[in-house]
């Protein structure tokens, strides 16, 4: 019951007229940028981060919650109408939703996605509300070696999950991407000894490299350069929205169970520090196909195939906030960017944040409920507008992305070096994209690397330099062993199959 009291307190903080307006602005902008093809939720959040800098933390995070949900929803709109999934979690939505759009049922696909997102987001946030305090209890008992092992596990799963298993040497590619991110994370003054690392005498580099710059560079600029190099502006075919978003009685009766099942699959998988959004969406799709009375419709536009995965995607997005808020552990690109947002305000998510900044944390959680509701209210009537945003010709679209990326970068510190870094990471991102190297491990390495190093060095300080500290503690040893299994297993399975 204490949780409910804290949540009520959170609503009291979040439900002021000012904050509601920030929430509306966040949802609107998040959707507007999120529907742009080629811009996924992580990039959207990164580009829009500077907008929140002038605000008090609670208002900023309320706007963020709006941006986060808006970006998610914008991404599914693009997947359905354009068949260009911005991230792994929308892949199934793109398959089935686009099939619906091809048959002239794009409006219903958008509706079931929007309502399903709302249902799943709400269930996921309820899950977060009650799971977070429990996990905080556990987190308070973890020691430095455990934290380090948890982070290693998170690195291992994200790297393995995102590496394309068919490409040559893909896990090695994923690991290279991770270490590249870790390397970027070490640039600047070592927080523990004040020694400069890899700054090469450039004073601006002593503060380290901003996560936002790298995320926007790798994702937005990398994508723009890659697109410029490959097809130079060949337009995708957009499916026009016909009729109203009204779902028929049959649509409702075929949607509500997939929404609930998708939420139940998505949330727990998102919440474990190894989840991601790809597995739950694929699981939900497979399950719905198996349970459906009309499995032959799957692939041709079955509404269950949109309702379930879309719910799973949103519930897992809410789930990733559990390890993010309670352990400070991001497990997706978007969560990594959100962690950077917390750091921007001088806050470090983790069990201590719940103790010291209880009003803020519960305000953020309350704002997730609000942002989610706001999204439904705004997006159902505005779907036609968002569909038109996608009609922007490609040259103007990518020109606009370059402008937004410059804005996101330059407004951070007004530093010209950041613009150079934006270009440099963009070039690296383009090369990685061309070689099918996953980008997310690099962002995760950058954000989490310094924290992992801190816990690593703390652990060795406790053990007076003995590496055995990582194997003598059962939890830590188990987590590290699990990480090794996660990394090695795909290679073994691949060899067996071959």
């Amino acid at each position: 019951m204490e949780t409910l009291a804290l949540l009520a307190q959170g609503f009291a903080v979040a439900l002021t007229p000012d904050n509601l307006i920030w929430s509306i602005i966040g949802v609107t902008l998040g959707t507007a940028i999120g529907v742009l093809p080629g811009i996924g939720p992580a990039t959207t959040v990164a580009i829009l981060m500077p907008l929140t800098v002038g605000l008090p933390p609670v208002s900023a995070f309320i706007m963020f919650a709006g941006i986060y949900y808006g970006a998610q929803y914008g991404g599914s709109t693009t997947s359905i109408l354009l068949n260009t999934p911005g991230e792994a979690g929308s892949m199934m939505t793109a398959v089935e939703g686009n099939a619906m759009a091809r048959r002239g049922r794009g409006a219903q696909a958008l509706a079931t996605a929007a309502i399903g997102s709302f249902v799943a987001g709400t269930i996921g946030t309820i899950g977060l509300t009650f799971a977070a305090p429990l996990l905080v209890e556990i987190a308070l008992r973890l020691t430095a070696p455990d934290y380090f092992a948890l982070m290693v596990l998170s690195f291992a799963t994200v790297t393995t999950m995102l590496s394309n298993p068919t490409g040559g040497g893909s896990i090695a590619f994923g690991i290279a991407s991770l270490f590249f991110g870790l390397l970027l994370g070490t640039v600047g003054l070592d927080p523990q000894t004040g020694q400069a690392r890899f700054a090469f005498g450039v004073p601006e580099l002593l503060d380290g490299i901003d996560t936002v710059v790298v995320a926007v560079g790798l994702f937005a600029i990398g994508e723009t350069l890659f697109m410029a190099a490959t097809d130079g502006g060949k337009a995708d075919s957009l499916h026009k929205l016909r009729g109203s978003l009204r779902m028929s009685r049959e649509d409702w009766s075929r949607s509500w169970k997939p929404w609930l099942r998708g939420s139940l699959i998505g949330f727990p998988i998102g919440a474990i520090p190894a989840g991601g959004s790809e597995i739950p969406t694929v699981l939900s799709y497979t399950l719905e196909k198996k349970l459906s009375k009309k499995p032959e419709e799957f692939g041709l536009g079955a509404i269950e195939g949109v309702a379930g995965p879309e719910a799973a995607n949103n519930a897992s997005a809410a789930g990733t906030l559990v390890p993010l808020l309670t352990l400070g552990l991001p497990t997706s690109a978007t969560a990594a960017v959100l962690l950077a947002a917390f750091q921007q305000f001088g806050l470090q998510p983790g069990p201590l944040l719940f103790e010291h900044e209880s009003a803020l944390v519960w305000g953020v959680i309350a704002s997730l409920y609000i942002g989610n509701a706001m999204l439904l209210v705004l997006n159902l009537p505005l779907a036609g507008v968002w569909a038109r945003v996608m009609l922007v010709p490609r040259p103007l679209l990518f020109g606009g992305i370059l402008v937004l990326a410059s804005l996101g970068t330059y407004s951070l510190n007004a530093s010209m070096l950041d613009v150079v870094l934006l270009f440099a990471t963009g070039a690296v991102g383009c090369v990685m994209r061309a070689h099918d190297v996953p980008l997310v491990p690099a962002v995760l390495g950058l954000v989490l690397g310094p924290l992992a190093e801190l816990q690593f060095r703390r652990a060795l300080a406790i053990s007076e330099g003995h590496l055995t500290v990582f194997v003598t503690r059962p939890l830590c040893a188990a987590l590290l062993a699990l990480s090794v299994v996660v990394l090695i297993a795909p290679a073994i399975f691949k060899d067996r199959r071959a």
Partner: protein
Amino acid sequence: MSAHRLPGTLFGSAVVALGVAVVVASQQIKTGFTYDVVGPAMFSNLIGIGLTLSGIVSVISARRASLEDLPYQPKLNIWPVGLISAALLLEAALISRLGWIPAVATVFVAGTYAFGDRRILSNAVIGLVLATVILLVFTLGLGIDLPLGPLEPLFQGDQ
């Protein structure tokens, strides 16, 4: 070596080179602080070693790869990439001197041109309007200052 193995081999070799460079550069980091058992160089050394190893594995698997294993590789056009890159670097060099509006409008025009839109003049107008709107929203609405360049005196009177 067959041509299809070249990109992967080059990429892996670049990763190895970066890893070796990191290990070499790590030797410059001062260590030996009594209160810090591990020191600031250990992690960067580990990163260098990790990069080197993952690069070596990438090279090996690239050389083993057969044609079917590889993702479809479209033909790459270099000039649009060069144009956008040049525009971004120009922006970095000029943004604080010329101000947000012209620097960003230039990037916008370069971007549209690289994607095949040849209407430079009308795109310049769109870029200028877009940059101006963003500047006004950020400076007046959010209190975040973007560089004004030569327009600076226009706004100073109000303060």
